[in-house]
């Protein structure tokens, strides 16, 4: 097995009742690679991402992350998830905790780091996402962009090997999108392995190593952004891109 493959999804299928959302997905992500998944809503891209950390249980197929077969019943999912960071569209910060506590809670309760160590790491990460002065703010007191940056810091505090971004900027006011994309971009430049479901074509074009276009539960086309976004081969990709880029 190749140690440089961080995520390896094979023949992944997922149904919700009669709704066959994923129809045989194969996807590998190399260490340090930034893969952007694009596609129309309902194409299954979020479901695919949520299967990578098993928030959704696949109907069939295997998901191997960092050599752990998550679809194997013997696999300790809680342990595996500490290596897989996830950022959600709705931020999902814990509203009863301050920014600092949000970033510390899993370090303390899951990784059993000492309070001092967790705090030090949290301070470092809050500084990195540009929110060092917001330690004691509650999520409700922060803008969407600030909340999402704290959510990124919270995920990074676990020192994950791969980060999943599920439409991380879709719920933000347009003027706040940039600050979050900037954090994601710097993360990519530092060599983080990233799987990003996004509608931000500019981000995909400039940051992604590879773009995956999905439609109706299958991967239609994938390759470097210069190919998939700038010169798509498939008709479905072209019609999707023209509808997003020309609005």
């Amino acid at each position, binding site marked *: 097995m190749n140690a440089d493959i961080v995520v390896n999804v094979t023949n992944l299928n997922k149904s919700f009742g009669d709704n066959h959302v994923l129809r045989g997905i194969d996807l590998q992500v190399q260490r340090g690679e930034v893969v952007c998944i694009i596609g129309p809503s309902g194409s299954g891209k979020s479901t695919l991402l949520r299967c990578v950390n098993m928030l959704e249980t696949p109907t069939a197929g295997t998901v191997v992350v960092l050599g752990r077969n998550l679809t194997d019943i013997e696999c300790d999912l809680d342990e595996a*998830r500490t290596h897989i960071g*996830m950022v*959600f569209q709705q931020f999902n910060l*814990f509203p009863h905790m301050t920014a600092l506590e949000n970033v510390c*809670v899993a370090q303390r309760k899951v990784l059993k780091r000492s309070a001092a160590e967790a705090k030090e790491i949290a301070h470092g990460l809050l500084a990195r996402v540009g929110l060092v002065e917001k330690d004691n703010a509650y999520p409700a007191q922060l803008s969407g962009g600030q909340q999402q940056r704290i*959510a990124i810091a919270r995920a990074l505090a676990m020192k994950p090997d791969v980060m999943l971004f599920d439409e991380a900027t879709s719920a933000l006011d347009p003027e706040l999108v940039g600050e979050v994309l900037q954090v994601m971009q710097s993360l990519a430049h530092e060599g983080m392995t990233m799987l990003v479901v996004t509608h931000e074509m500019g981000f995909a074009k400039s940051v992604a190593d590879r773009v995956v276009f999905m439609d109706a539960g299958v991967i239609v086309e994938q390759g470097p952004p210069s190919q998939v976004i700038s010169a798509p081969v498939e008709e479905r990709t072209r019609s999707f891109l023209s509808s997003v880029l020309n609005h």
Partner: protein
Amino acid sequence: MALSKRKKAMYMRYVMYIVSIAILIVVILFIDWGRLGNAMFRWNIVKDQFPNILTKAAKNTVVFTVLGFTGGISFGLLFALMRLSTIRPYRWFAATYIEIFRGIPLLVTLLILGFGIPIATGWHWPNPYLQGAIPLSLVASAYMAETIRAGIEAVPKGQMEAARSLGMSYARAMITIIIPQALRIIVPPLTNEFVLLIKDTSLISVLGVTAATKDLARFGRDGVNQTANATPLIVAGLVYLAMTLPLTQLVAWMERRTKAASR
């Protein structure tokens, strides 16, 4: 000329005020206040109620309420978690329990558990407080389970997902993330349940009481029998109000505060 709609509405409001005041005046004039006061509020009887109505009767009411509430919230949390469980027999058991104990009047439950079980089994309640408080808490737990379940379900699904994605187990996520948020939601309705429990303890006296375990309502009733006057019941009612009014005001305040915070 016909009145405009708004003018009509304005006159209508005046009419409402006048009618209300007229009814109040009639009631005040036609009631025989002397007779009413004599039968229901005699000062010498009021004074006789103290201090026992507070040191004994109200104390017992509080003991029954606190025991009932503590048991109710513990079992209520258990049944709420069972109802939310992925294990079907747990869900069925909890749902059945809740439906049964919410569907039978407390009075009937008290009699079945307080008298029926000892008669049927030969087993006796070791303690008269428990004999009243345990049936009370079993019924309370059915109501509280539904309140707690609603509170837990009101916490957005994304909270559990975020906690799990950070590597927390289901139990850890419940304890650290979900239940603290659910508590904020359910404190006002649980306080209301507490008020209901205070009042429901008045039924416990049907199980027969000793002088030591008399609650407020029974104390008032016995007072009526001794004095042939309704004053003791009125005093008991006022003592209930002294306990419940601050709590209902507290709930109103908490609800105003959450409303203001969510704005």
